[in-house]
């Protein structure tokens, strides 16, 4: 930081300083030709203190156990997409830690989530990581059978079980709510409704994205050797871009990205693309920015004319190109879509473990789950969502490609190599970070007031659930 910048920053209340002498995200977006909707053109930052965040949460297996007892049992979680279970009887097994649920469509507009364990001697009714279709659930051990609605159909040799009352032997359920094509479940029957949990601001944003009209075109998973929260936090700020993704910084407004929090369970950043990083000011021309611009789905950009005209900005040209090519590639009309939605990265965290990306160029969902019995391992999944084709025929959701720990994301079938490279860079730091936190003499991590507010906000909610022994 220059002395001048430090001076300016020191006159401000904590959390009020922004990247000096650079346009804000809102100013960048305000210059676009096709203007952005209100969910983009709003800010919701609040300072949450500057204290260190304790590291026991990342390194202590006892902390992970508390999370299983108090956090995972009381939060709304994305279990599957509705398209995974389109027909009555379709089911999808969702696991979190040692808990396992059979999420199944029991009627056209009804989905239930049954605890995946036989009420006789406990056998899982369906193996983990499976999906399929059933007209009833039969236990493979002695054949006790439940109807699709969870009521007991048959206890084999019922003459031997006069003490098994049908009305007491329905499969126990978690709460289920459907939203934007996602199936959410919550083990806590006293939990607030999903809409209240997420809050009106975010619901408004989500509504305008029409995620219910998308389908899973790709699904990649990999076990990352780090705590699930560390893994998530690697994606919560653009502060790491200059060091971790130098190839991206040339066309990413990283240090002047925007950070917002909404209630306790949602936060986001907006990171503008097609704009030079403040770190690189003066080192690149607009033409350089355009030349180095990459997007998650760069296949749609091949063959475009990339020579800027006098006075034309890289960002505007990129927006125009993306509009045209995405219209062709996805066979859809994007004339009403803003430049910002076409270009920028909108990363939202939905507590506890889901990221939703709005916008067109990076249509993704991330899910992170701790591996049961190992607080140092996280199952990280990336779903790519595309709009359902104009003809309305929804393709089957892509099957999950499970990468080995040593494999690159670039090896996953259908993965854009440029994007795979970014994910490799994001996750390569994590083992070193996990080990460093185990080796450190410092009891907490230190966070930036603005650029790392999502990390602080997220951990504050983790703390709330873990501390609250309700």
């Amino acid at each position, binding site marked *: 930081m220059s002395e001048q910048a430090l001076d300016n920053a020191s006159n401000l209340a904590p959390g009020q300083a922004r990247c000096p002498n650079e346009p804000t995200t809102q100013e960048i977006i305000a210059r676009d030709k096709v203007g952005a909707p209100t969910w983009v053109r709003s800010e919701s930052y609040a300072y949450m203190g500057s204290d260190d965040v304790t590291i026991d949460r990342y390194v202590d297996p006892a902390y992970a156990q508390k999370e299983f007892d108090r956090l995972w049992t009381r939060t709304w979680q994305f279990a599957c997409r509705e398209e995974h279970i389109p027909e009555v009887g379709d089911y999808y097994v969702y696991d979190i830690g040692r808990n396992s649920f059979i999420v199944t469509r029991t009627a056209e507009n009804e989905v239930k989530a049954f605890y995946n364990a036989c009420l006789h001697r406990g056998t899982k*009714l369906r*193996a983990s990581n*499976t999906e*399929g279709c*059933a007209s009833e659930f*039969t236990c493979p051990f002695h054949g006790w059978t439940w109807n699709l609605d969870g009521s007991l159909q048959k206890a084999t040799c019922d003459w031997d079980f006069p003490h098994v009352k049908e009305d007491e032997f329905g499969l126990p359920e978690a709460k289920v709510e459907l939203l934007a094509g996602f199936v959410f479940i919550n083990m806590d029957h006293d939990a607030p409704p999903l809409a209240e949990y997420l809050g009106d601001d975010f619901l408004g944003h989500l509504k305008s994205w029409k995620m219910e009209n998308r389908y899973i075109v790709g699904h990649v998973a990999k076990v990352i050797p780090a705590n699930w929260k560390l893994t998530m936090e690697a994606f919560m700020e653009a502060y790491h871009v200059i060091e971790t993704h130098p190839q991206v910084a040339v066309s990413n407004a990283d240090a002047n990205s925007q950070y917002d929090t909404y209630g306790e369970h949602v936060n986001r950043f907006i990171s503008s693309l097609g704009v030079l990083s403040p770190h690189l000011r003066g080192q690149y021309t607009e033409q350089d920015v355009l030349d180095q611009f990459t997007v998650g789905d760069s296949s749609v950009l091949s063959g475009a004319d990339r020579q800027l005209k006098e006075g034309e900005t890289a960002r505007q040209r990129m927006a125009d190109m993306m509009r045209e090519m995405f219209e062709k590639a996805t066979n859809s009309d994007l004339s009403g879509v803003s430049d910002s939605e076409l270009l920028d990265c909108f990363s939202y965290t939905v507590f506890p473990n889901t990221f939703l990306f709005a916008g067109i160029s990076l249509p993704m969902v991330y899910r992170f789950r701790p591996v049961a019995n190992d607080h140092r391992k996280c199952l990280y999944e990336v779903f790519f969502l595309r709009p359902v084709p104009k003809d309305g025929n929804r393709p089957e959701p892509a099957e999950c490609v499970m990468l080995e720990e040593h494999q690159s994301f670039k090896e996953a079938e259908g993965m854009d190599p440029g994007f795979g490279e970014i994910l490799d860079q994001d996750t390569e730091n994590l083992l070193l970070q996990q080990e460093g936190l185990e080796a450190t003499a410092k009891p907490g991590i230190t966070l930036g007031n603005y650029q790392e507010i999502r990390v602080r906000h997220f951990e504050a909610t983790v703390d709330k659930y873990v501390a609250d022994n309700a």
Partner: protein
Amino acid sequence: MSSEFTRFCPLADVPVGGKKAAKINDTWVMVCNTNDGLFAVSAICSHQDKPLFNGRVRNCKVTCPVHGARFDLKTGEPLDLPATKPIATYEVRVVDDWVEVCL
């Protein structure tokens, strides 16, 4: 093993996304027409010898409706518990708009 193909059903009976089970001699065979082509496998699950033919076919895999094991239609390999043994797979071809299977 003989390598004779037997007429199984008219191709029109198994459109893409469809499947059909029938007995050839004493063997229950299931033919699935998928995005990746036609496949013929045993119609009986290797887990507890229950019928597989009401199972959902997706991504070239069939899920047993009884306990949920999945099998790869190309190889017959079991992909999940509770199944641990493969199901038989058979050669299949189309001749004169008939699906033929070789047991």
